[in-house]
């Protein structure tokens, strides 16, 4: 490590610089969109990025912790689906009060993640495999509840779905606001608590962290529990957003979340990056989609090709300008 770092000292190697590049690129992307597509650069379009991706932001925050700790969590998409499913079922068929439903779902999510973390730690298994199995399990449990989607018509959920909180002439959804609050709490957690710093230490070098007397096991279990919690919260937000529970919800969300975290400047090998990067990553992904939706002339395959191309341009420019070579 030290060897590589010798060569790239200076401004461009500072982690904040990469983040800055990301933000600049994002602004540039929005600017280009605005100049090409009329109506693109309205405040509401930017807010819609947040509204539509609130659940992804929350999940990416959880994923950010896992990746910083050097792990990965593939189960988040399925846990999201399972959470929508359990919420819908409890609300519609068991007629639980919404607060109890949300509390239970969040608890279950945290337990699910924590259990995976415990398995990973106790049996020294690879996070990839364990969370992949977790992904199958959560998705499978959805179908055990019901194969069909369940509509939610609970008034509280409906209110959360349809309330528009006016801000600066536009509006945000309660879900988006919750997501932003989660982000702030997570930043605080990552940078100002012993837990957050332990996450960085474990991701930097697990063995050293243990030698320095940190409780690696507890940190890992907590990190996965946190990710499970975030996935469940993402599920709740998704249920607010869609007003339904469905076993096929959120397919591929894990990949989106990982991509968001990585684009936000976090190293997949752990230890380097900022939780706040999740926001820029999510916004980049959202902006790409919005650009395509505004274009409105692309066929299904051109959509994929253009997403790939934009990702490519973005990552390469970020890499070349941000120039961090720690790998």
């Amino acid at each position, binding site marked *: 490590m030290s060897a590589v770092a010798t060569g790239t000292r200076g401004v461009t190697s500072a982690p904040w610089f990469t983040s800055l590049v990301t933000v600049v690129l994002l602004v540039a992307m929005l600017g280009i969109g605005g100049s090409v597509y009329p109506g693109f650069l309205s405040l509401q379009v930017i807010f819609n990025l947040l509204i539509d991706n609130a659940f992804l932001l929350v999940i990416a925050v959880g994923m950010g912790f896992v990746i910083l700790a050097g792990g990965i969590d593939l189960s988040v998409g399925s846990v999201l689906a399972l959470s929508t499913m359990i919420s819908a079922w409890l609300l519609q068929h068991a007629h639980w009060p919404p607060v109890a439903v949300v509390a239970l779902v969040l608890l279950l999510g945290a337990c699910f993640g924590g259990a995976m973390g415990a398995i990973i730690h106790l049996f*020294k298994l690879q996070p990839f495999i364990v969370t992949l*199995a977790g992904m*199958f399990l959560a998705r*499978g449990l959805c179908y055990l509840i019901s*194969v069909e989607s369940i509509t939610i018509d609970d008034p509280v959920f409906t209110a959360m779905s349809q309330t528009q909180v006016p801000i600066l002439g536009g509006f945000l959804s309660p879900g988006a606001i919750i997501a932003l609050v989660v982000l702030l709490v997570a930043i605080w957690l990552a940078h100002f608590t012993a837990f957050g710093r332990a996450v960085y230490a474990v991701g930097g070098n697990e063995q050293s962290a243990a030698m320095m007397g940190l409780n690696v096991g507890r940190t890992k279990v907590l990190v996965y529990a946190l990710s499970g919690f975030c996935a469940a919260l993402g599920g709740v937000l998704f249920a607010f957003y869609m007003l339904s529970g469905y076993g096929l919800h959120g397919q591929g969300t894990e990949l989106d979340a990982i991509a968001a975290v990585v684009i936000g400047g976090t190293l997949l090998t752990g230890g380097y990056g900022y939780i706040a990067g999740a926001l820029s990553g999510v916004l980049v992904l959202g902006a790409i989609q919005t650009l395509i939706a505004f274009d409105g002339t692309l066929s299904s395959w051109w959509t994929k*090709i253009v997403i790939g191309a934009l990702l490519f341009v973005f*990552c390469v420019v970020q890499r070349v300008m941000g120039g961090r070579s720690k790998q």
Partner: protein
Amino acid sequence: MSTTGATVKPSAQAAASRAALLQHPLVRPLGALVALLLVDAFLVPGFFHLEVKEGHLYGAIIDILNRAAPLMLAALGMTLVIATRGIDISVGAVVALSGTVSAMLIGGSEPTTPMALALAASLGVALLCGLWNGVLVAGIKLQPIVATLILMVAGRGLAQLLTDGQIVTVYYEPFFFLGSGYLAGLPFSLFVVAAVFAVTLLLVKKTALGLFIQAVGINPVAARLAGLRTATLITFVYVFCSACAGLAGMLITSNIKSADANNAGLLLELDAILAVTLGGTSLAGGKFSLVGSMIGALIIQTLTYTIYSLGVPPEVNMVVKSIVVFVVCISQSSEFKNILRRSA
């Protein structure tokens, strides 16, 4: 200075070597596979039954082997990528792309392009894909997962672009031999896998490739200082992985006599990574086992087949699959044995 001070005595050595055999990294994946097969033997009537039909062997085992062929190929390539501490999630897209290219070039009952050329072209496309990934990872130094994410998204789009989103059906009989023909009573695809496997094994064992890949995976900085061409090596493994995926794509296309750009190889990358990890190779890079990955692929395919033949309701598929993966992994971990020993 003595080098013998801490070596073991010969009497203990025999016991140690026996223990070492049980400690062999392949014992566990193999054990899991055998256990699954045993379950099948008990629960699926006629599972091991083989008969000769139309001059070739016919039975569940043959099906599993034949179906596992593309996965085994993908897992072979993925093993080397993972050994360098990388990951390639574009495998499925490359499968779709190369399958599409071969199907389109071969076309109707009379091929528009000579078959050899068509196959070479689709392999060429796969190689290009690999080169692209390799350059992004080794040249531009993008993180492997994002680098290959780009092709994962765009590759399938390209394949659909070529076919206008249609399924391309192939009518040219000789092409079918690749994926559904039989040689010496066994599916030809197995010979393809065996050949690739043998070549890879040879490369890894008889040249210094295996050593170099491990070195790069474990400590890239030290490997560079020892004079390895780290960038070339990394590019090579991505090219190799895509080539394997390309071959897998041709097998799949030939087997279903059509190329489905939308669905071919969907999520194959996940299964390939799962196969590699089940085979005992760590995602953290370094030591790898090609045989292990083969066994891993067979475990996955056997499991899928078991689920189909047991008549598990589709709603429960996923739960069953996840529980098996959990059980296999946990029972394989050495910690589990320690816990058993402690409680015994």
